[in-house]
């Protein structure tokens, strides 16, 4: 047993193997040179961005808001009635300025009571009228 243990001690952790002269130096050199290129390991090269590429997101954003504004405008025009007063309509304004039109189409719609009230408001009393007896109205 002791003899066998002495074998392990006697070998002194030496395996007795050698390599050809300059083997390791040559191997290291050849191995490092023979490694295939790995371009995928390299960091991707980022090309400088053009002015249009830099502005494009903002242009698209502005176009989007412009589109939204146009849509809202269109919906408003379709859904709301015209709030413009009649007097602002040039055709109606011209017609109202015409006394004959007013007399024939506006005042003719007045009842006699309205006309009576109009006279009273204007300081014209039935008694002062020569024609007819309006007090019986």
């Amino acid at each position: 047993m002791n003899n066998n243990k002495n074998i392990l001690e006697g070998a002194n952790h030496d395996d007795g193997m050698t390599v050809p002269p300059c083997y390791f130096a040559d191997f290291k050199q050849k191995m490092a040179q023979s490694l295939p290129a790995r371009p995928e390991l390299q960091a991707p090269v980022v090309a400088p961005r053009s002015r249009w590429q830099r502005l494009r997101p903002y242009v698209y954003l502005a176009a989007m808001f412009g589109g939204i504004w146009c849509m809202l405008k269109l919906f408003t025009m379709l859904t709301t009635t015209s709030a413009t007063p009649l007097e602002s309509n040039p055709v109606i304004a011209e017609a109202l300025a015409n006394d004959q039109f007013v007399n024939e189409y506006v005042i003719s719609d007045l009842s006699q009571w309205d006309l009576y009230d109009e006279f009273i408001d204007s300081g014209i009393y039935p008694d002062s009228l020569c024609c007819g007896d309006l007090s019986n109205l």
Partner: protein
Amino acid sequence: MASLPAENPELIERLRDPATVAAAFADVIDIYTEPLYWQIRRMVQSHDDTNDLLQNTFMKAWQSIENFRGDARLSTWLYKIAINEAITFLARERRRANISIDDQESALVATIAADEYVDGNDLAVKLRQAVAQLPEKQRLVFNMKYYDDMKYEDMSSILGTSVGALKASYHLAVKKIENIFKISD
């Protein structure tokens, strides 16, 4: 024939950086060529086979360098690749020659006897021949412990075996070597 090379954090950082990975890997080759060579050579015995397997080891490491994230030690990772290469080679040789594991052990003993790259230490050659007759796992454990003086913890991380099992394996290997020498006497 030192133990595992000391871990170099700066080298790990350079391996992670795409700009410096190629140069860093050349340093890895520089540091690990010798320890990996001896580890493989003690398994396959032939210098020429070892040379091929060592090239394969570094090539595989280079091809999958992006998979090395630094979770494990660099040396552990490289040793695992090298040992897998050696074991795969031995299995492939067995299939190719259509021989059993026992026959392969005899073939390894013959390879050692015919090895031209030896320093003339007969005792060392005899010990190599005895080690070559051990089962593959015990041979690995014995090589790492006896020749490389590797810590059991390091061996455990490389071989994926518990420290207790490795100690038992080494003890068995020593006993078997003693028996082999007894029989040869």
